[in-house]
């Protein structure tokens, strides 16, 4: 009996189950969120119909999509403005965050002296600082950029600083033994070692930069010069144009998702060959 069982080892039931489970997981990862989302939208539609909710309070999803199409010129123009501020803010955050962290990495004393300032800048709500910015900065674009930058640069600074300081001690000794200059150590050792940390910070900063751009425009919106998505939302709110409000909201949310996905892809491409976080699990 046992001999017969031993002679047919080709199909291992446990492995088969495991493989089936993995395949289900792979499909489920995509299908489930989409299905739940579709269900939620359908429910939203049903609630509107069942309760006869007027359009200016809660529009039906179909109406929102139609508005997205009919107001496309207005909305996508605004999206472009918001996107420009978001990306420029993120770019400045990268330059500022990485630049400052490299400066901090040069000396513990510099880091100890100036890091608290960065923390203060981070923990003070941007909405509270904005009136000051409004007084000191004339250019509307510069105001919004400054806001997006303040919100977005801290995760990059904090993560990159951590990365620059967590270099393997033996590798640093190796560089010393080979007479590496400070610059060589930074370029060939510390910056590449900080890359995974920096990319983690960048992923957070991408979302924050969008938030910064939108919030700044909300606060600045009173001056009426801006025409990003935030001012479209305020405008639509005043006019009880709920479909456009929802359409703008969806655009912002999609923008955030796209930014996150792009930065995740960038991170994956840069780290896939060597860093644990980006490796495919084997077996």
């Amino acid at each position, binding site marked *: 009996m046992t001999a017969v069982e031993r002679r047919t080892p080709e199909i291992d039931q446990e492995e088969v189950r495991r493989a089936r489970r993995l395949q289900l997981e792979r499909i489920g990862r995509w299908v489930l969120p989409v299905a739940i989302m579709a269900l939620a939208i359908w429910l939203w539609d049903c609630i509107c119909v069942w309760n006869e909710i007027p359009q200016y309070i809660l529009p039906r999803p179909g109406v929102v999509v139609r508005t997205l199409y009919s107001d496309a010129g207005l909305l996508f123009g605004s999206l472009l403005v918001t996107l420009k501020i978001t990306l420029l803010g993120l770019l400045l955050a990268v330059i500022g965050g990485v630049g400052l962290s490299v400066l901090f990495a040069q000396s513990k004393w510099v880091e100890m002296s100036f890091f608290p300032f960065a923390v203060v800048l981070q923990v003070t709500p941007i909405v509270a600082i904005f009136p000051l910015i409004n007084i000191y900065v004339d250019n509307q674009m510069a105001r919004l950029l400054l806001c997006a930058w303040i919100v977005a640069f801290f995760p990059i600074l904090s993560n990159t600083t951590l990365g620059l300081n967590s270099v*393997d001690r*033996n*590798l640093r*000794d*190796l*560089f*010393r*033994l*080979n*007479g*590496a200059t400070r610059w*060589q150590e930074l370029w*060939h*050792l510390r910056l*590449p*070692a900080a*890359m995974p940390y920096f990319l983690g910070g960048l992923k957070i900063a991408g979302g924050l930069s969008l938030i910064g751009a939108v919030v700044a425009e909300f606060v600045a919106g009173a001056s009426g010069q801006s025409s990003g998505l935030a001012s479209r939302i305020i405008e639509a709110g005043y006019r009880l144009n709920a479909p456009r409000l929802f359409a703008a909201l969806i655009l912002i949310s999609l923008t955030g998702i796209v930014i996150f996905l792009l930065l995740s892809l960038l991170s994956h491409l840069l780290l896939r*060959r*060597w*860093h644990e976080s980006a*490796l495919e699990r084997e077996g």
Partner: protein
Amino acid sequence: MRSDKAARRESAGSGAALLALRSVGKSFPNGVTALRGIDLSIGEGDFVSLLGPSGCGKSTALRIIAGLTMPTTGMIDWQNGAGRQPSIGFVFQEPTLLPWASVFDNVWLPLRLKGVSRSEAAPAVAGMLERVNLAGFEKSVPRELSGGMKMRVSIARALITRPRLLLMDEPFAALDEITRFQLNDDLLELWREERFTVVFVTHSVFESVFLSSRIVVMAARPGRVFEEVAVDAGYPRDEAFRTSPDYAALCQRASDALGAAMGNKAGDRGAG
């Protein structure tokens, strides 16, 4: 007798002194005395093992020789003519490779830091990879390699600058026995061909006997030189040597010395 000794010198090195540690001591601020009164001279072409229990300061001694740590007392006397440190290769306990860089780039690194371009370095790097049996793996990154292969890359990197002194800090301690034997063989072959000097830190009696021409047995608290054991078996040493009675007897001697250094009674301990 004289000629026998001369032959041994021939196989072990030229015999000219390379460096001497003169009553070197090292204390740390927390009150620990890692080393006290180390006197040790190392000849050109020697293969010296520092053997001792953990905490006897053998790694600290190696770091002092490398110039990574300054001694608290005493000095290092470089006797290679220049009066200062010659080029040094260092192999750490872990492979300590750049995880994002390819095998080629990792081996190129010391040359790169000296301003040698990729194309200038390419023949030397290719030759060195050939020597450590890693030809064909230039483009792999460290995580794609086994532990033994990573250590080979580390050795290739240490030797790419053709150093006169190779310092190794328990390089094979984390490897399995089969891999370790192979790397021991390959290391000896490289050493015999290139004629550099090796200071090899280990806590394995067998490894120290197999590799070295001299074993410096160290004792702990404070770290000091306890005894020197000359390994007067000639090179080349191979699989036959590893199973010979000579080897066993030498291991017994080294093991006794280590046991005595650890304060045990001779005879009632294993070989470590």
